[in-house]
């Protein structure tokens, strides 16, 4: 079989198995193994199955994954999310719809601790939704706001999406994490602008202004969160200045989070072991997907598929703009059904080499990819963040509410994507100037 046909058949087989509810990692591994057997023989496939799993994950670069997951889990267990939200709430009390804005700011701050969009959305549904409902805020818009801002965790470091992108493509994880900062802040600003515009049009969506609190209360709220801000500063500052590699920064983050939680007497032995357990479970499933993706990438490369795809694109005069347009369409469709990390692992093995061959900046391309999967997870009918909000609301939010409420935030996301397309410097300025 021709490499191009074999590779295409393999990609379709992975999609079919995933649709049949075979775990993503298992589907990738199985198809890659079968593909290698067909293209290079059984001994080659077996030796890859022997060497790839241990070799892939016994890399110091990977240490960053469980470290940042554990840091986020410890911080979440210690109740810091509620305090971040309260700080944002008292700081923004004078604005109309202050709780919507506080959700954006609080979620942005939490995104600097947690790298998972779904965790972010679920946490803020439990904390912000009851507060907004108690003040007669519009339910659909509130739910859309929470689902939308949850995606900030994919951009703002320590973003798991960027870490996985870095692992899959060999790009510097430190540079990728730093590249997400400006697009993340820009997204937050566009969300707040979108909220302000919607409230000017529909003021009854936030009927009452909050009472402005005295400065003493704001200082008290800040006093509760300053150690967390300091920790974020040390971890991100350490990566940006080159003081620590991301893996070491993650380890410092874990110890710092543990110290903060213990000093605040907010972490019992049971909560700590539960944080470790959830870290193990998530790390195991993520790493297994990466192993499957690595084997799949190796199959596509050794079978000659990647080379043939590049030749095909060259022969058909496909320009980078056309390639990026196809990428947008592919990610938006896939993203409605598959989780962000799995999409990247399934597609980057064949998309990244093409992007590289076309001379597209790999850091900018990473930001575009993460932004696209971020938009996909909030796109109805099956964006995963939307369902995270519905399920975390314990029946308070219906699917139709969040489908309607998310629309202004999707518009803001598309504007942000267009800006990053038009001004790549938004993504590349910080990494190009880091230590």
């Amino acid at each position, binding site marked *: 079989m021709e490499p191009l046909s074999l590779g295409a058949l393999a990609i379709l087989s992975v999609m079919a*198995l*995933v*649709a*049949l*509810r*075979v*775990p*993503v*990692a*298992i*589907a990738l*591994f*199985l198809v890659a*193994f079968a593909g290698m057997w067909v293209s290079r023989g059984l001994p080659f496939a*077996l030796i890859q*199955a*022997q*060497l790839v*799993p*241990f070799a892939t*994950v*016994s*890399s*110091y670069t*990977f*240490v960053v994954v*469980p*470290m940042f997951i*554990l840091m986020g889990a410890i911080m979440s267990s210690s109740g810091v999310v509620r305090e971040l939200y309260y700080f944002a709430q008292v700081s923004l009390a004078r604005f109309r719809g202050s709780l919507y804005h506080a959700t954006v700011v609080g979620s942005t701050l939490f995104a600097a601790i947690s790298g998972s969009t779904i965790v972010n959305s679920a946490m803020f549904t439990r904390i912000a939704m009851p507060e907004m409902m108690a003040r007669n805020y519009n339910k659909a818009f509130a739910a859309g706001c929470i689902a939308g801002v949850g995606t900030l965790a994919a951009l703002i470091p320590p973003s798991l999406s960027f870490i996985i992108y870095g692992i899959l493509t060999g790009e510097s994880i430190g540079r990728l994490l730093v590249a997400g900062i400006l697009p993340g802040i820009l997204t937050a600003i566009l969300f707040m602008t979108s909220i302000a515009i919607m409230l000017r049009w529909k003021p009854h969506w936030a009927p009452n202004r909050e009472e402005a609190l005295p400065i003493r209360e704001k200082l008290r709220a800040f006093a509760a969160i300053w150690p967390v801000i300091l920790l974020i500063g040390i971890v991100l500052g350490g990566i940006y200045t080159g*003081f*620590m590699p991301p*893996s*070491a920064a*993650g*380890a*410092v983050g*874990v*110890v710092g989070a543990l110290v903060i939680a213990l000093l605040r007497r907010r972490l019992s032995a049971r909560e700590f*072991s539960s944080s*470790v*357990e959830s*870290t*193990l*479970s*998530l*790390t*195991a*499933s993520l*790493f*297994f*997907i990466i192993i499957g993706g690595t084997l799949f990438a190796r199959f596509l490369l050794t079978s000659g598929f990647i080379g043939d795809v590049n030749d095909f694109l060259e022969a058909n005069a496909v320009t980078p703009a056309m390639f990026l347009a196809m990428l947008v369409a592919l990610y938006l469709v896939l993203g409605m*059904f*598959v*989780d962000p*990390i*799995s999409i990247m692992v399934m597609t980057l093995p064949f998309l990244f080499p093409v992007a590289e061959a076309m001379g597209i900046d790999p850091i900018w391309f990473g930001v575009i990819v993460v932004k696209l999967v971020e938009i996909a997870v909030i796109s109805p009918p*099956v964006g995963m963040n939307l369902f995270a909000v519905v399920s975390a609301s314990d029946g308070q939010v219906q699917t139709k509410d969040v489908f309607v409420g998310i629309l202004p935030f999707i518009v803001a996301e598309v504007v942000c994507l267009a800006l990053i397309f038009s001004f790549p410097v938004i993504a590349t300025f910080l990494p190009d100037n880091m230590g």
Partner: protein
Amino acid sequence: MSVLDSVTRTFVFACAIMSGVLIVGIAALGFADVIGYQFFDTGVPGALELASKGLAAAFFLALPLAQYRRSHVDVDIVANLLPEALQRLFGYIGLVAALAVFGVIGWQAVDLVTKSYQLSESAQGIIPFAVWPFKTAVLVGAIGSALIALMQILGRDAL
């Protein structure tokens, strides 16, 4: 709870505890290394090699927990639209696929560990240490996960 269930749970949680100890140890090692470099001009000898091999062992020892809890990432959107009998069938397909993949990894891990032991493979770094104990985690994690998948198939635990 049957004896088999009890043995499985004990195995899964023993592996998870070892994995957890490794992860916390890696965090402590990484922190000590940063402090050492910044304040004493020297890091922990062999920290990078220990952390990377320890991470691999931690991952493979956490695999049985992920299989036991069925927490490997899957996509249930299409399956959820189908009748329960078909969903159950898809569940079995997933478990059989998992059994095959873990079986192949576990089978190949026998050779991986044997070669590492016979060749006295050691980690390259300031402090050389034997790699085979870390590679043994591949064998334990993959075979353990395969057995759990088999039990899930036999126990008709497809959903």
